[in-house]
C-alpha cells in the first residue's frame, strides 16, 4: 500500500482534515468518508456526469478529480447548494415539470444547470442542451429538464428586472 497523505479542504463551508489514499477520487471521499451521498457515482470514468460537484467555483467530475488534489480547495456539493437555498428555484422547477424520474442524475444536472445560469443568465434551449450534454439522463428524454432550466432562467430574469425597477424607484 502506498502511504496515506494528509488533506485539508473546505466542503460546503466546513473545514475538513483527513488522511486519504492518493488513489481515491473526490466522489468516494465525499460519499464514504463525509457521508455526503447526494453526489452520485455512475460510470466513474467521466462519461455520465452524475458525480458533478463545484470545485473552486468551477464544475468538475468528482470521479476524475483525485481527492488529494483538493488540498486547500473549496468544494460545494448538492447538499451545500441545497442548504444555502442557491438552487431552491431550480429544484422546484424540476419537481413542477417532472424533470426527474429515478432521480439518479438529478444532483449532477442541478449543479451543471446552476453553473450555466450563473455564467449565461439568458440561455437559449440549444445552449441549455449544450451545457448539459455531459450529463446523462436515462429516464426523462431531457425535454422536461430543458424546460425546467429555461423556466428557472425566465423566473430569475423577471425577479432581477423587478429588483432593478425597485432600485430605480428608490434612487
Amino acid at each position, binding site marked *: *500500500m*502506498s*502511504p496515506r*497523505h494528509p488533506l485539508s479542504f473546505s466542503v460546503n463551508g466546513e473545514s475538513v482534515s483527513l488522511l486519504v*489514499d*492518493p*488513489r*481515491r*477520487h473526490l466522489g*468516494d471521499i465525499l460519499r464514504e468518508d463525509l457521508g455526503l451521498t447526494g453526489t452520485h457515482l455512475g460510470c*466513474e*470514468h*467521466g462519461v455520465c*456526469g452524475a458525480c*458533478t460537484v463545484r*470545485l473552486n467555483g*468551477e*464544475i*468538475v*467530475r468528482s*470521479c*476524475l*478529480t*483525485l481527492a*488529494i*488534489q483538493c*488540498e486547500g480547495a473549496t468544494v460545494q456539493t448538492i447538499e451545500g447548494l441545497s442548504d444555502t437555498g442557491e438552487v431552491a428555484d431550480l429544484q422546484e422547477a424540476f419537481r413542477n415539470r417532472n424533470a426527474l424520474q429515478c432521480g439518479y442524475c438529478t444532483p449532477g444536472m442541478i449543479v*451543471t444547470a446552476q*453553473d*450555466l445560469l450563473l455564467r449565461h443568465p439568458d440561455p437559449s434551449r440549444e445552449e441549455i*442542451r*449544450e*451545457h448539459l*450534454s*455531459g*450529463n446523462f439522463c436515462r429516464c426523462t428524454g431531457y425535454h422536461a429538464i430543458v424546460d425546467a432550466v429555461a423556466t428557472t432562467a425566465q423566473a430569475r430574469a423577471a425577479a432581477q428586472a423587478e429588483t432593478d425597477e425597485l432600485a430605480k424607484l428608490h434612487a
Partner: protein
Amino acid sequence: MKAPAFDYLRAASLAEALSALAQHGESAKLLAGGQSLVPALNLRLLAPEILIDLNEVPELKGVSVENGRLRLGALTRHSELERSALIREHAPLLAEAIRHVAHPAIRSRGTIGGNLAHADPASELPACAVALGAELVIAGQGGERRVAADDFFEGVYATNLAPDDILVAIEFPLAAPTRRHAFLELSRRMGDYALVGIACTADYAGGALRDLKPVFFAAGPRPTLAVRAAEALDGKPLDSAALDAAVEALGQDIEPEGDLQISAATRLHLARTLFRRAVAALAPEAPLARKQETAA
C-alpha cells in the same frame, strides 16, 4: 471501477518535477488535468507507482504575448481557452475548437499541455496546433528544446516527448488580422469524440486561398496536414472545378481507418464533405457552386 494504488507527489517547481520524473522513470505518470489519465486509472488500464502532480508548478502556468507570440503554459485549462480574450484575439481557431472538446465539467480541468502530450488521434487541439504552426516548448534533463507541432505528433498516443521530458508551454504565431480559420467536426453527440474533423487556416486574396493549412483529426494515427489538397488550391482561382480537384486529391493525403462507429469509406467521404464546407467557410465570397454533398 477504482484506481489501483499509487503514491503521489505534488511538485512545487519544474525542477522538482523533472528530478522526480528522472528518479522514477516510466513507473511515474505526470498528472495535469487528469481528464484522460484518471479514467485510464479507474479502468485499470494503467498502474503507475507514483503520480507526479504538476498542478502547482508555476513555470507551467500563464497566458501571455511574448516576443510576438502567444504563449500558453501547458497547464492552461480548456475553460481558459474558451474565456480568454487574449486567446480569442490571437488564436481564434482555438477558442472556436474548444467548444467541441468534451463538456464544461471536463473543460474546467483538462489542460492544453495534457491534451497535446496525450496525443489522442481523435483530439481537436493537436490538429489546431499543427494548423496554427505552433511550437512546443519541452523541458528535459538536458535543458529546454523546441519542437514544431507537425513534428511533435508521431502516432497514436505517441509523441516526440522522451520519458523524462515535460511539456512546458505551447507558443503560437499571432494570427494576422487577414488570416482566416475554419473548424468543423462531426460527432454522434455534442462533446463526443469526433468521427472526423478538420482545423484549417488560410489567407484569401485576389480570389485565391493562399498558405492553406487543412489539418484532419480522427482520420489517421496523428493529425494530418492534407498537403496535396492544399496544393491543389494554393494560389489558384478558387472555383468549383478547383475545389473538386482538391477534394479528389484529398484521397492521397489521408487514409482513414474504419472502426465500430463508421467504415473507412464513410470516414473518407465525411472528410471530403468537411473539406468542402471548410473551404466554403474560409472563402464565402468565392464563386463555389452549391454542390450536392452526397457527390463529395
